[in-house]
């Protein structure tokens, strides 16, 4: 289903004509996206301003990460640590500038007390006017400085709302002690065009992450449920583009579609109802002696009705597909020891699971339950370096949302900082990021891909 306002916004002539006619429409900004596999230098040719107010602790890590990603750097603060690494990658470091900026990164790890928070204003305020369309703001704070950590989240979420109309995003990375190098992965993701629809988010990183690199899933085995269309289809494509062998799982009815997708990727298809009691056996048979490196639970159904009018069968179906099957299949795979060390479990939640949604008591219960499972499982599997996370999509332009009545659909699109729906590829890119070694420091968390939807935020 096309988005009329976004289409209008894409047409310069129409935009002008509307302006001349005095018609003021809240036209959303077409987002800058990067299709295809993760590139070796996702920030090639982009200029990123880095703020390192006194006491900032991550200069060395940022100095190595940003030029490697292809960015040129403008430093506000002590530029000395940035010069060597920039030289190694043939990138400039300046200490002032007036040109457009593609990203703003503030290393707020030196901030703790309330009176130090002025540094946030000092860095961002003079530079916001230079931030390009689809510009990226990332603030890094220390988890062990509780006041500052919460404060930057508040600032980032508000700033996201300011930037949304020009396609900009603002996100926060909370670094645990010793997680300096792990910051590079989420930093690269938030600064790149792979996170076009991710805004107002906070991720906590622990030690263990590695910088982003292309083809990092070479030789890995991924299993994705609900792979025949929409988010699932884009996810298997994105995982395969990073080198993974993908087992595409979808309902037996969709066998033709699933097979077509799998064939195109050199993966395999499995017609399987995830709620089938024999699902575990069938999955095992399809995998042969392969172990799973990336398990993505994407299958889901809606059976919307107010609770007052909902039949028990509709309640339990929604809960069983989105939650029951997730738990059963994951536990079975774990019991068989078939999830590789360093593996990934990624389950699809929903902003409905965070905020609740009229007519979705069943769906929201299931999607919220997923978060509870992810949080508990992450702790259980930490020893094995397996990360477990949830992705909570907002309004995504899929077959499912195209069927939503017009008025509700429009509300879903517009009630967000970016003022538009996301693409299935936006969710696929976030899932793929979590599947890569760059996200090894992220576990037990919920990453929303919602354009900073106002629901539950």
């Amino acid at each position, binding site marked *: 289903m096309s988005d009329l306002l976004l289409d209008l916004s894409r047409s310069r002539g129409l935009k002008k004509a509307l302006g001349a006619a005095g018609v003021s429409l809240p036209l959303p900004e077409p987002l800058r996206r990067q299709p295809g596999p993760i590139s070796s230098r996702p920030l090639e040719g982009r200029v990123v301003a880095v703020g390192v107010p006194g006491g900032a602790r991550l200069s060395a890590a940022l100095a*190595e990460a940003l030029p*490697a990603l*292809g960015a040129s750097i403008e430093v506000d603060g002590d530029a000395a640590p940035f*010069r*060597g*690494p920039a*030289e*190694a990658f*043939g990138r*400039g470091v300046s200490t002032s500038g007036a040109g457009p900026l593609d990203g703003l990164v503030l290393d707020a790890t030196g901030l703790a007390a309330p009176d130090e928070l002025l540094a946030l204003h000092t860095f961002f305020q003079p530079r916001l006017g230079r931030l390009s369309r689809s510009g990226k703001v990332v603030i890094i704070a220390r988890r062990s400085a509780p006041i500052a950590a919460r404060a930057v989240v508040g600032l980032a979420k508000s700033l996201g709302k300011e930037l949304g109309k020009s396609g900009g995003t603002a996100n926060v990375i909370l670094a645990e002690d010793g997680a300096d190098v792990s910051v590079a992965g989420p930093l690269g993701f938030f600064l790149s065009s792979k996170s076009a629809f991710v805004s107002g988010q906070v991720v906590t990183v622990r030690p263990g992450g590695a910088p982003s690199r292309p083809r990092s899933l070479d030789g890995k085995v991924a299993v994705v449920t609900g792979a025949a269309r929409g988010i699932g289809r884009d996810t298997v494509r994105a995982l395969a583009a990073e080198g993974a062998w993908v087992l595409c799982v979808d309902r037996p009815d969709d066998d033709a579609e699933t097979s077509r997708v799998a064939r195109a990727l050199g993966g395999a298809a499995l017609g399987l109802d995830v709620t089938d009691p024999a699902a575990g056996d069938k999955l095992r048979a399809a995998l042969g002696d392969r172990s799973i490196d990336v398990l993505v639970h994407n299958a889901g159904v809606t059976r919307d009705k107010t609770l007052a009018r909902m039949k028990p069968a509709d309640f339990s179906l929604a809960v069983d597909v989105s939650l029951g099957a997730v738990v059963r299949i994951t536990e079975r795979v774990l019991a068989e020891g078939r999830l590789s060390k360093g593996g990934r479990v990624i389950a699809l939640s929903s902003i409905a699971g965070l905020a609740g949604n009229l007519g979705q008591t069943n769906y929201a219960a299931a999607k919220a339950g997923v978060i509870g499972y992810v949080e508990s499982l992450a702790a259980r599997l930490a020893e094995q370096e397996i990360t477990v996370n949830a992705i909570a999509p907002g309004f995504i332009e899929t077959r499912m949302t195209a069927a939503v009545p017009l008025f509700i659909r429009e509300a879903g699109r517009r009630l967000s900082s970016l003022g538009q729906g996301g693409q299935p590829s936006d969710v696929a890119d976030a899932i793929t990021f979590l599947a890569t070694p760059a996200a090894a420091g992220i576990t037990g968390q919920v990453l929303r891909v919602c354009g900073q939807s106002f629901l539950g935020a």
Partner: protein
Amino acid sequence: MSNRRRCVVVGGARTPFVKAFTSFTELDSVALGRLAVAGLLARTGVARGDIQSIVWGGVILPSASPNVGREIALDLSLIDVEAQTVTRACASSLSAITTAASAIERGDCDVAIAGGSDSTSNAEIKLPQKVVHAMAPLALGKPKPADYLTAVGKLAPFSDVLPTRPRIAERTTGEVMGEAAERMATRNEITREAQDAFAARSHHRAAAAAEAGLLADEIVPVEAPGGWVHQDGMIRGDTTVDKLAKLRPAFAKGGTITAGNASALTDGAAAVLLMSEERAKALGFTPKAVVSSWAYAAVDPADQLLIGPAMAVPRALDRAGLSLEDADLVDFHEAFAAQVLSVEKALASDAFAKLRLGRERAVGRIDPARFNVHGGSLALGHPFGATGARLVTTMANELARTGKRSAVLGICAAGGLGAAAVLTRPLEILDNLGARQLAA
């Protein structure tokens, strides 16, 4: 003493290097190669019957006879000399030399000629694939009138049907090499002044080498259709930084790369005579240098296209057991002054060593007094396929002439390739190895 077979350089020869579309226009890549090899045979006096193999390098290969090496052999009546032709962009003739050296070290061969040639003047004008595919039914078989109509239909709309001008552009990025060098100049902060000063130095040193007769040691005069050519055509001993500063940027508005600090399109050929140490001794030759080590590397062409030597040089040095400071001579191909200076800067950078090469410390600084002592491609010109053999010839002669011990060569090449080799003086190395083994 080491038991390993070693490959030695017995001698080298090259044609004069002249600007494309000047005196060598009617000499194609095979003809230029034949002249260089004939000169090498005459200079060294090697018996034709002792030559076993030719390994030739070229970039713009004639499509009707791409094995240029064998064509040269046939033209020189070296009927039983087997030959191959290798292509590795501007590192092609270095590739030819190290391919031959490998064969000699392995014991597959004892006497080989390796070199390369290119004639930019004879680059074939390419018809667009659209035209080729549309015309195929007409060229093959017996076309009917209807086939002509079909072909015309396939060509419409009549865009992209004119032959394309050959350009040195990367296939994957579409970027012309000068643009890549321009970006490298910006990114590595290489100023116009530094580039022009380097270019002027190249010309002055090449002119001094020509004056001293050193270039005559490597050049064999060529009888071109317009008369004899005895020397290189592009050296300007009288150029100055001020003169170079007046030239307009060639690739970007406000850019720094000019015709004066970039190497020009050139026609020419160079060849070296390689032998196993034992055979050289048996045949009574005094080797000029040993081909001690070599290395090839690659970087992403979309990043810094011509930085490859900064990766390859340290590898070749490691394999030879030398440091950059140990090398008595450093000779880099000068595609662009900005490119050489970028590579020099990378090699001198601790951060580059740590983050890009995984080494503790910078590879090293290059003493200007040892660096491209007789000028380089900026002054002499750069026939793509001949430059590697030109470097080996110049450095082998220089080692033999001065008694110095080692030279490291570096070449950047299209596709993000870097190439490097280390030449050493035979006796010194034997002594060193002997001493090392005694110490052990």
